């Protein structure tokens, strides 16, 4: 998002072209599709949607021999709580996404591409529709693009408020006109059996924008940004208890979590201290402010970090037992009631389960009920263990990774803050003894 902060930069095609826009598309068309795929592979760019899977590898898995049409789908569902980066790209630089998508579609051999955008992005939808019209008028989209024999169209498809549409196979079901019930993998890997049972590539908005930059600078140059295995930039979305929440783009590993919170985001509110950070969207495991993180990185280097020392990239956060996920960094200071925070998160997942798998459909609402009861004044000392045992029986036993997404917060909050769960019960018992109302007024639920 190089240009968006420049004064006068607007989201129309003329401004985009004035700033060198669609030059990379011309460059892409002068290349063979397989060469673009090779550049993307070499760039090492990893998916920005959550799982961090290398895009080049995903493209390599694409079944090109089936004889069926190939589809490209841009995942613009952006519904992981704490994440708001795709929104910025769509609102402020929609043509970057469109250019990235046409380059990608050309590379993978797709003649029809979709942008699946969450239903609440009313304005984002209108912006994209207009941008696509503008691109079509200039023959960057449509039939025989720029005089080549390649034709491609993009359809913007609106979701309707269900988080599970962000999961790629749920998204595909939704795009087919069904409920967004995720499909079981194998066999339904989108690259082999995706949309309409055809080979399909699903990538996040930011990932597809990265493809444009790979075309522009070449895979090897792109790979020099960041560190090996963690290439390119990432847009960190910081929310919660910091002075200057917002989105900030940095090269991977260019700064630490401490620098992000204290230097970039202006630190915490006066008089407050850090309690916990969820570093990659609400599904990511929570980090406790006073933890020491030790171990070995993939490349063998030993590390010993406090929370502020963690480099912001895929592998470092993973080595600390969490993940960079969708880039949503949620900061909590010492005013935060941890049980309430988990109760809030559980409410979200209980609401969003698609209901196909029993452990998820039943277990996640149980977890919600337990944390709701805890904050309502009926906490029991054994609740922490009970919550944990439910979460353990969900993760790994479901069709899609929502099971993990819903369990990780519970497992990590309890692993790191068990004392506060137990204390909640004791405190309530003490208040009850004094004849007071056991429940305190809640803030987060």
């Amino acid at each position, binding site marked *: 998002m190089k240009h968006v902060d420049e004064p006068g930069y607007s989201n129309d095609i003329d401004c985009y072209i004035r700033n060198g826009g669609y030059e990379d598309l011309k460059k892409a068309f002068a290349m063979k599709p397989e060469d673009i795929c090779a550049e993307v592979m070499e760039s090492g760019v990893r998916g920005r949607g959550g799982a961090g899977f290398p895009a080049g590898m995903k493209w390599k898995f694409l079944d090109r021999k089936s004889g069926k*049409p190939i589809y490209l789908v841009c995942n613009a569902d*952006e*519904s*992981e*709580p*704490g*994440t*708001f980066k*795709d*929104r910025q790209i769509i*609102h402020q630089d929609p043509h970057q996404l469109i250019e990235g998508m046409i380059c990608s579609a050309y590379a993978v051999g797709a003649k*029809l591409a979709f942008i699946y955008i*969450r*239903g*609440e*992005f*009313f*304005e984002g939808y209108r912006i994209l529709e207009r941008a696509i019209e503008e691109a079509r008028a200039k023959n960057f989209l449509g039939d025989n693009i720029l005089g080549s024999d390649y034709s491609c*169209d993009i*359809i913007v*498809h*609106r*979701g*309707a*408020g*269900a*988080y599970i549409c962000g999961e790629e196979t749920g998204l595909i079901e*939704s*795009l*087919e*006109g*069904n*409920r*967004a019930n995720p499909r079981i993998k194998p066999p339904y890997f989108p690259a082999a059996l995706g949309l*309409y049972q055809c080979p399909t590539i699903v990538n996040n908005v930011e990932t597809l924008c990265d493809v444009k930059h790979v075309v522009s600078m070449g895979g090897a140059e792109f790979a020099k940004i960041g560190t090996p295995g963690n290439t390119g930039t990432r847009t960190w*979305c*910081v*929310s*919660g*208890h910091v002075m200057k*929440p*917002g*989105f900030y783009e940095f090269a991977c590993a260019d700064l630490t979590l401490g620098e992000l919170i204290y230097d970039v985001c202006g630190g915490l509110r006066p008089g407050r201290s850090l309690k916990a950070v*969820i570093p990659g969207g*609400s599904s990511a495991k929570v980090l406790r402010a006073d933890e020491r993180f030790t171990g070995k990185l993939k490349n063998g280097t030993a590390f010993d970090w406090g929370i502020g020392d963690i480099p912001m990239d895929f592998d470092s956060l993973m080595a600390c037992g969490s993940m960079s996920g969708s880039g*949503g960094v*949620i900061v*909590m200071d010492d005013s*935060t009631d941890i049980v309430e*925070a988990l109760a*809030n*998160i559980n*409410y*979200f997942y209980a*609401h*969003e389960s698609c209901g196909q798998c029993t452990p998820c459909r039943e277990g996640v609402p149980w977890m919600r009920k337990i944390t709701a009861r805890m904050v309502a004044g009926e906490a029991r000392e054994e609740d922490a263990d009970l919550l944990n045992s439910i979460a353990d029986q969900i993760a790994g036993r479901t069709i899609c990774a929502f099971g993990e997404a819903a369990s990780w917060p519970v497992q990590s909050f309890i692993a790191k803050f068990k004392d506060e769960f137990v204390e909640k019960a004791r405190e309530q018992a003490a208040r009850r003894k004094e004849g007071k109302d056991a429940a305190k007024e*809640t*803030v*987060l*639920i």
Partner: protein
Amino acid sequence: MKLKPETTEKIDKLVPRYPVKRSAALPLCHLVQEDQGYLSNEAVEWIAERLELEPINIQELVTFYPMLRTEPTGKYHVRVCRTLPCALAGAYQTCRKLEEALDVAVGHTSEDGLATLEFVECHADCGKAPVVMVGEDEYTGIDVEKALEMAEKMKSGTLPTGLEVHTEA
């Protein structure tokens, strides 16, 4: 069912773009809902017929997707974000204030039909929490005070609308 001519036009343009007709089901639900305010049984049957599906194929979408509704909303459709980043910024207090000021319980429409109040999941603008949407407009940084102002403006019919993002109520 009587649809506005521009809705029919949009539908006729949209359906043939999809390789499989059924894919147009969700977009049609949106278009018809925007036209009619909600999805009645008649609307569900109409969409099904238009796409050569059974009504149940549409009904199952209406019951799955939170944005599709079977009843009209009040004049203002107020959606307060309740997920963690907004909650950390005071979304629950914002929502309680709106309940009180608009005299409506969450999940309901006020008796005078002025506002429908909902408490919903992340609007993906958590850096500007608490976030409130009214219809298609987004209002950011809505603390208790601004919530009160918004409610007053809804009552007097002077809430500004039609902007991309409102940073002031």
